[in-house]
């Protein structure tokens, strides 16, 4: 399953909540705080990283304040050896 995230322009958001029912993963909530216009902006609450980057929230957003990012598949690469050594040394030093 693809994963992603959204970034909401909190100053532009008017807290209309159209994005909430549009989100299939239900990871959008309204913030408790207010923006400068006095609205409670929408925010991404996604502790399990279940956002798929489907962009349905952005499609229905009347104020165009949502930018959608989708994670790209990563090739497995190991860290360079000196980094490993340094990391281990650092861990030992801290321990």
């Amino acid at each position: 399953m693809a994963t992603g995230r959204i970034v909401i322009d909190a100053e532009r958001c008017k807290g209309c909540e159209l994005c909430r029912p549009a989100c299939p993963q239900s990871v959008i909530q309204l913030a408790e705080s207010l923006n400068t216009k006095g609205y409670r902006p929408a925010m991404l609450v996604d502790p399990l990283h279940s956002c798929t980057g489907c962009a349905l929230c952005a499609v229905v957003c009347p104020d165009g304040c949502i930018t959608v990012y989708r994670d790209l598949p990563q090739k497995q690469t190991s860290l360079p050896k000196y980094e490993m050594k340094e990391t281990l040394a650092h861990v030992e030093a801290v321990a």
Partner: protein
Amino acid sequence: MDTVVFKQNHVQPLEKITYERPSSLCDVHTHYCPGCTHGTAHRLVAEVLDELDIREDTILVSSVGCSVFSYNYFDVDACEAAHGRAPAMATGVKRVNPGKIVFTYQGDGDLASIGTAEIIHAAARGEKITVIFVNNAIYGMTGGQMAPTSLLGQKTTSSPFGRDAQLAGMPIHMAELLAQLPGTVYSVRRSLHDARHVLQAKKAIRTAFEAQIDNLGFSVVELLSSCPTNWGMTPNEALTWVEEALVPFYPLGDYKVDERLQGRKGAPK
């Protein structure tokens, strides 16, 4: 869409932008109420201008109504017409600048009431302009009065007991009406009440602009829209009302698609 984000020491891009605000929209905050689908319609038009890469050649004629400030929101050249006269002004603009893409953005109070003569004659003459018609069945800017497109029984500030057909007549179906005229090449109705319909509306707007780019004739897209403030609903309730009340009365569909437009995105297969 090609933007790639790099993070710290990683050489591979971690993520890519799949949706962002179209560049044809100015970086300003709109005056529209929370949840008003005018903003959605603006964004769809701007996305189409971006996709077709015609922003530099586009001229907007904005109307009177809630959309009166649309010249502040689209990053295109624009002028403001008198109430209802946007198609007449667009006619002049297009005839003087036949190489430009000219579109009007009008609400139902503007297009279907005071501007009925202008829109019908622009369509009858086959003016090569595109009309984005936002129908929310009420006068939004002036405080929620009855519009020509208000439903029967709909309570507004000027019909507090509901619209009465004996007194105020029947609502006008503009997409069907304009489809009857010979100069019209594209007349469709779409809705903005959920993501699927928003995407369908975008395809229709694209086809309408393509009809103008190909110099075919008059194209109009009617968008069923919401007015949460004057309907007295929350934004999500308003979208539900669009789906349950407006869409059954104003059926979505393609009322006229010129054969030269067949097979394109948004046209029926």
